[in-house]
């Protein structure tokens, strides 16, 4: 008998003999539905309070934040990039052209017909930054979630460059973690990344310091 097959059956047999009598799948599902869920699922804040909380949390993490108007996206992106001194950026292939200000070099990445992008990780590392949207954001924890969905690109895109400029729409900001999972649930098989501020560590004397391997600089524009 194949050793991996016998390992599998032996582990399962050992679990079953330890647990005793087994239940049918239907009964397990019923039992699961009855698990206590007394925690807060829906938020109670007004949109204004929710946005303020979100921005405050991001600032605490050391991210740059700004609330902007819907018709000012292109201009505000240009302002941020200029302030950061970023000239060469990589963008998901489906980022709206209307977002892109003049005077900067934007390289599209990914897309259906070019699944093996021309840029390798090392080339991405050499870019000044990356500009994306997001799937959902959580006010209570200051988290933004990327799901390889529209305007987000694949995971390496927001990882290798040292600067990330993220555009979040006010209606994408939920208050609680459970509300974000309600949004993510239908696409749960996509690669999903929660990020809360720039990369950080507290491994030395429990002092949180910004910037280790992920993007060390993060700006967030919240569009209303």
């Amino acid at each position, binding site marked *: 008998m194949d050793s*991996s097959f016998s*390992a*599998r059956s032996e*582990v399962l047999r050992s*679990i*079953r*003999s*330890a*647990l*005793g009598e087994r*239940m049918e799948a239907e009964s*397990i599902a019923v*039992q*699961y539905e009855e*698990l*206590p*869920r007394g*925690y*807060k*699922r829906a938020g109670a804040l007004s949109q204004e309070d929710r946005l303020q909380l979100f921005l405050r*949390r991001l600032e605490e*993490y050391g991210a740059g934040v700004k609330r902007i108007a819907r018709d000012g996206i292109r201009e505000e992106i240009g302002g941020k990039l200029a302030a950061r001194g970023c000239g060469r950026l990589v963008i998901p292939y489906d980022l709206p052209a209307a977002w892109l200000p003049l005077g900067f070099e934007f390289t599209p990445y*990914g897309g259906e017909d070019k*699944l*093996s992008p021309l840029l390798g*990780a*090392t080339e991405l590392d050499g870019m000044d930054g990356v500009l994306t949207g997001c799937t959902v954001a959580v006010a209570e924890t*200051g988290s933004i979630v990327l799901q*390889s969905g529209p305007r987000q690109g*694949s*995971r*390496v895109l927001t*990882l290798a460059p040292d600067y990330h400029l993220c555009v979040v729409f006010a209606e994408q900001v939920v208050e609680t*973690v*459970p509300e*974000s*999972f309600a949004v*993510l*649930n239908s696409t*749960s*098989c*996509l*690669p*999903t*990344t*929660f*990020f*809360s*501020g720039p*990369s*950080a560590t507290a*491994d*030395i*004397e*429990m*002092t949180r*310091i910004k910037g*280790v*391997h*992920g993007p060390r600089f993060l700006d967030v524009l919240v569009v209303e």
Partner: protein
Amino acid sequence: MKPAASSHWSNRDFPVAARELLEDSQIRGNVRHATNVIQAKRDAVTGELPDWQQLRDAGEAIRAHSLAHLDFYLEQFARACTQAGGQVHWARDAAEANQIILGLIQRHSVTEVLKIKTMTSEEVGLNPYLEANGIRAHETDLAELIIQLGKDKPSHFVVPALHKNRMQVREIFQREMHLPELGERPEDLAAAARSYLREKFFRLKVAVSGANFLIAENGAVCIVESEGNGRMCLTLPDVLISLVGIEKVLPRFRDLEVFLQTLPRSATGERMNPYNSIWTGVRQGDGPKEFHVVLLDNRRSPILGDAESRQTLQCIRCAACLNACPVYHQTGGHAYESVYAGPIGAILTPQLHSMEEGRSLPYASSLCGACYEVCPVKINIPEVLIHLRGKIVEEDQKTLRGQLGIWNLGMAAAAMLFASASRLSMAQRLGQIAQKIFVNRDGMIEHLPFPLSGWTQTRDLKPLPKQSFRQWWAERTSPDAASLGDSDRAGQAAGRGGSDGQ
């Protein structure tokens, strides 16, 4: 350093190992500082959530449910992961897990691999095994890198290098990275780690990780981290191998809404850690082309059979119990001589060794209950500690040496005394006479002869009173106790009537 062949490094008893560490004021200072900082942060961010107790209740219920149906959920996970392009392997023990991982690495003809911090790989001794087979594993978590370059051992499973301060880290990095000019600010040290590892992230083709959670319904794997080293290893290499204990499965994706609240707040005192990654199998054009999950039993399944200690496996490795423990505070993690230190280590380590090793660990606790109070999945650690102590005593009593041991003889003698009123009163009278030579001027006993000296070594003992309760009671109720007033007599009669009526 001797390669760790198991999660338990040596069979030195906890008091012996602890004594050595208690003399190291540097380690004690570092541990005290770090645990105080994490605990204060943890208290603040758990205290601000009005539904914290409900989150603990839900977390406990979900984990207990997952364990009660572990076979079902593991099979569901394996099916879903395979369907999504992942490959699932099963390992009965540490040796089998190591062989599987080595085989996968060798298939790609590489001699170096990346690693994300994983205590499970420490448990199976993966790094020394790979080293012995010509493969160098590069730890990429900052704390693990400090441990690896310093040829040290982890002392905490969230912050493994918590026992090292910045000066010590600088010394290690200066020496091992050849950076004589390196500064001592945490920023400088993190920057050094960044440039040391960056080239490796982009060059190496195989990464090995652990996992925080497996999701049964869709075959997803979740890793929670801070620095982005995890994302690097999960995204850039062609091949990813995740070694995961069988207990880490959760039924559904949405269950993460509980644990992604309780884990970061309990572990590092943050509302959310900088990065959480969740992925399913392989995805063309995004991340590794080949993904393996190695499901490790290594004596976890028998723990499921013990109704009282099964809850040990509910653990999500937040280490809040270490930070809260007054014993860990004093000794740090190395005294436990195990990958899994602190209160949870004291119950997990001996069980992972079928109670054959780490037998002093269930006693490394004052049973104060602080660990239970902070546990985000409500593992009643004191209850399990007492249960394991009971098991150890029962096993001891099966051997001649145990039967003739001082504890067993002492307890047998005590049981005999307490079983009979006349024997007890005789013993009390003897004690009252015998203790006289030990009572000092302040009316306390400072020293007792062996075997009772163990008690008086660190505390004074009150002598037996001149009169025992039984003697006093007998005097009060005897008919010729003329000194009793009328009201006392009436009260006593009522008391007797009450007890007679029961």
